[in-house]
């Protein structure tokens, strides 16, 4: 395992712990929000394994995960979970102004069951990428 790979996995696991803790308190939005960096750290590990450099671009990391899926490094379920978290991220983002103004956010429903399912798949994605770090 490279130093960079180890650090990336450690950080991904830290985000998973925070996400788990939010799920335990039935707090779905921060749970999903914390899955996002976990997916991204895992995706950069996969990119490096496939010969690319780690990227700071969100779209490049997601695209890396897609290639990893097409190469059979991760499962379709794991990739789809990442894609869903990617879609949800701007909607679940906690905005410190939320409580200050009452503007409407687009209606988004994330129930705790879906968040739990996503968590299982993202945890598995991080576990997989650990093998390639």
């Amino acid at each position, binding site marked *: 395992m490279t130093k960079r790979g180890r650090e990336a996995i450690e*950080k991904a696991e*830290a*985000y998973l*712990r*925070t996400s*788990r*803790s*939010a799920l335990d*308190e039935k707090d779905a939005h*921060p749970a999903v929000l*914390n899955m996002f*960096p976990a997916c991204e750290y895992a995706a950069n590990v996969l990119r490096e394994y496939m010969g690319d450099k780690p990227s700071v*671009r*969100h*779209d490049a990391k997601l695209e890396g995960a897609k290639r990893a899926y097409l190469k059979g490094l991760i499962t379709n379920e794991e990739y789809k979970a990442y894609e869903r978290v*990617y*879609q949800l*991220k*701007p*909607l679940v*983002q*906690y*905005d*410190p*102004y*939320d*409580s*200050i*103004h*009452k*503007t*409407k*956010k*687009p*209606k988004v429903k994330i129930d705790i069951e879906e968040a739990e399912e996503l968590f299982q798949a993202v945890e598995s994605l991080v576990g997989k990428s650990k093998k390639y770090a």
Partner: protein
Amino acid sequence: MPEGKTISNTKNLKVLRELIMAGPDGLSASHAAILSGLSTPSVFRAFRELLELGIVENIGSVWRVMPGNLYAEKAAGLLDAERYMMLESLVRQEIAQVERKATGHFGLNGFALVAFGSSIGEEPLEASDIDILLVAEDPGGFHVDTTQMKASLSFSAYNEIEDMWRAGDQFVQTTVARGIIIRDPGDRLARLRISAPRRVAAEQTLDAYIKSYNRELELYSRAYKSENWEEAARHRVKLADNMTRQWLLRLKVQPKSRTELAGQLKTLCVSLYNAFSDLTREVPATKRRAEKADKALWRYRFLTSLLSDETPEFQDLLDLLYGDEQTAEIAAMTFLLSRGFQVAEKKADMLVTDPDSGKSLTIEVKSLKTGLDKKNVGIYLLNRAGKGENFCLVYNPYRDIPADERVFSVNPEVARRAKEKGIRLIPSNVFFSKACDLLIDEASKSEWIETLLGFTPEVAGKPGK
């Protein structure tokens, strides 16, 4: 158009920009001079030219944009366009992506867009989030993924924005008044900015900050407990930001964007500024750093609570900043007595002694509507000031202007004459900051006296004729 009078004269535009930002409450000439960086005579010239063009009006000493003036609304758009062009390309790219997607979704005239927050502040931050307010009748399920995913969207309908503005919602007023209006069909937001009275509901705003603080604290604690140092650091910065905003609001100062908060603190309380800078400095997210920063966070919490209305002496310090001459003088005396100094009154001065060390100084407090950056004001005060050993003239300049926006520097000629006469000039922000140090036990009474006696004011401007 009257001969020689134009809007596009740079000085006129600078002044107009500040008047537009100030809204219908307007500005005095000296306040406009401070904000625009122009001299007061230049501001008066600009006011007069804009008045002749029918763009501004004056009521007593206050100048403001003529409500409903079509050209002022257009000029506001031009000034926003200039600010937009100055943004870094990444920020512009993200905003443009949102704008394109919104045009496809709502139609060309179906929405307004305002960029706000630290990414477009006076000193733009390398943006972690680009805050955008989208105003449309029915935002529905509009959603956008920008390349960097930095765009953070808030949604509202026009009537909601107007209602919230009327109710004194600080978020809406700051966003529309200080943000960059990117799209505004029918100039509805520009009109709001120029003509709608601004009355921030301070208590309501403070309550909202407290609520937001509690949620942030919950998220911080969760990240910290799960040893997610990176996430904990992110929430720690937001908590520091929130506490600073609360503190400034209690000081009757409108908090600005995140990057400007440090500057506001530095003007008013150096100890808090140092603690805030420590907390928000970017450092590697390790366990050791996180533990250290956690202690710093609680210390900051403690300091901001101590320097608030929870401490009765703090009210005296506020009176020193905002009160008229007599109120400011009484406030200084009451404060010093409460901190254990011996204070003896003699005419307009007070002899302040530390009973432990025996060190003493004489203080005279002057609360002013103008500043010592004006030579004539300074010389007048020096001629009238008392005398004596260790004499300090505490001057509180521009008392009608928010404390973070004042000019505390001294005209060089005034500084020279004060030195000649052995008078130490102490600006009220420094007195306030050092007084805060006494409250939080950062300085002993004897150190406090020494610091004031050793203080040299900042000098700026031309000596004048």
